[in-house]
């Protein structure tokens, strides 16, 4: 997202107080840190954070959202400022599109197809050839989003099995499990996905779209921000699977980064710090954009994706979800 202000990541539990136009961040150890509120774009709280009314009103004035991740890295919720860019006319267009079976299925198909392309690109092109062909056929046949989700699930299971062959024993997924993740590999994936979800929510809130009206996931069911689920989907492999393979390959992930019980696992404090740092660095990586002719950060790709969907809603321009092109 193109702005001078920064995203602040809180990786230790702390209390946020207001000091004039600054946020005063107090930690159990060490001196408090003061951050001018104008330097803050948004906050991702990876640990328990205490805040009070005066902080909230300051954040509100400056349109700063705070995203909370649970211990497991599940997205726990956000403190969203009341002021958004949501526009009535755009939401009407968005709802119209979501209600139009043919149009919304076309968008959902595109999301599933691009996600799979990205998974395959990251995990293994050759071994996922066949599952990919099967998926493409099911996408073409699918007439409901449930069928699409089912087809995606089948493809994902093959991909996770292939992923396991490239991981050390202790990091293998043995199937995807959430809430709680059953093992270290799953804990890693959940945590990264939680961060990407939070970033995507911030990105969509900068557009006039409504975060609750979706195309692949069911609108406003269980998940309040179902559009975030739709758009985050295509980026998860770029971050979660890719970084898992990278950190495992370099031997940077250690069992000590996790707290593992018989049937559940979560990141330890050092593990959380390592992953947050890794994802932050990755979000800042830039690449030359194909049509904009300038360098964009990965983080900005999420915003551009939301803009592309806005264009689909407002102007009917075909939506081509993000595919790793490099």
């Amino acid at each position, binding site marked *: 997202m193109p*702005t001078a202000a920064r995203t602040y990541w809180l990786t230790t539990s702390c209390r946020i107080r207001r000091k004039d136009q600054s946020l005063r961040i107090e930690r159990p150890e060490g001196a408090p840190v003061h951050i001018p509120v104008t330097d803050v774009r948004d906050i991702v709280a990876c640990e328990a954070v205490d805040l009070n009314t005066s902080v909230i009103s300051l954040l509100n004035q400056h349109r700063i959202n705070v995203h909370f991740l649970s211990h497991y890295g599940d997205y726990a919720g956000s403190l969203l400022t009341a002021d958004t860019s949501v526009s009535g006319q*755009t939401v009407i267009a968005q709802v119209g599109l979501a209600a139009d079976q043919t149009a919304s299925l076309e968008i959902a198909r595109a999301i599933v197809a691009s996600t799979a392309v990205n998974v395959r690109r990251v995990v293994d092109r050759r071994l996922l050839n066949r599952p990919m062909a099967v998926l493409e056929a099911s996408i073409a046949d699918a007439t409901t989003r449930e069928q699409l989700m089912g087809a995606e699930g089948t493809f994902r299971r093959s991909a996770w099995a292939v992923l396991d062959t490239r991981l050390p024993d202790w990091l293998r997924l043995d199937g995807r499990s959430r809430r709680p993740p059953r093992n270290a590999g799953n804990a890693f994936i959940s945590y990264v996905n939680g961060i990407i979800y939070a970033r995507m929510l911030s990105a969509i809130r900068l557009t006039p779209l409504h975060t609750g009206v979706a195309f692949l996931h069911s609108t406003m069911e269980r998940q309040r921000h179902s559009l975030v689920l739709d758009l985050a989907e295509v980026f998860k492999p770029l971050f979660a699977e890719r970084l898992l393979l990278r950190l495992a390959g370099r031997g940077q992930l250690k069992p000590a980064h996790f707290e593992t019980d018989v049937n559940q696992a979560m990141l330890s404090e050092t593990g959380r710090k390592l992953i947050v740092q890794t994802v932050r660095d990755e979000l800042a990586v830039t690449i030359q954009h194909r049509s904009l002719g300038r360098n964009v950060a990965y983080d900005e790709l999420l915003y551009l994706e939301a803009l592309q969907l806005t264009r689909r809603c407002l*102007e009917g321009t075909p939506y081509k979800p993000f595919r790793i092109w490099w």
Partner: protein
Amino acid sequence: MIGPEDVGGVHVKYLYHCRRQLWLYARGMRPEQLSATVQLGEAVHETSYTRSSPVDLGAAKLDHLDGAAWVHEVKSSSRPSRADEAQAMHYCYRLRAVGVDAQGGILHYPKTRRTKRLPYTTQAAEQAEADIAEVLAVVSAPDSPPLLARSACRGCSYADYCWNE
């Protein structure tokens, strides 16, 4: 949909800059909140004209109205554009409508230390009225106006939206 009274200086500015930008703005696109250009614009205000007082006319916000009823506008670009001029005339029109006898606009360009005086004439008044009608026509059109030529889009904060593929 907006009515004549909702049309503000930004609408008029965008009408002259790019109709597509105006159409998108009316649909909630606000990338300018993020753009570095706008942040630069704010910095210009803070440092160059601290003693002027902003005037709020509802939909229209202008930088400063002096004692002789001239509208002052501080611009971060380096030279006057038709959009700047139309915007200043729009403010005069709005001021006249609420009974302030606006004399015209003075555009300030701190970057080049230039100023431009634009007296408010009958012709300017007619144009300001026509601009409002034109804004409403563009905004209410069902389809988006076409993109400008790529070179004309340079520096536009909507370029990410328009040219992203």
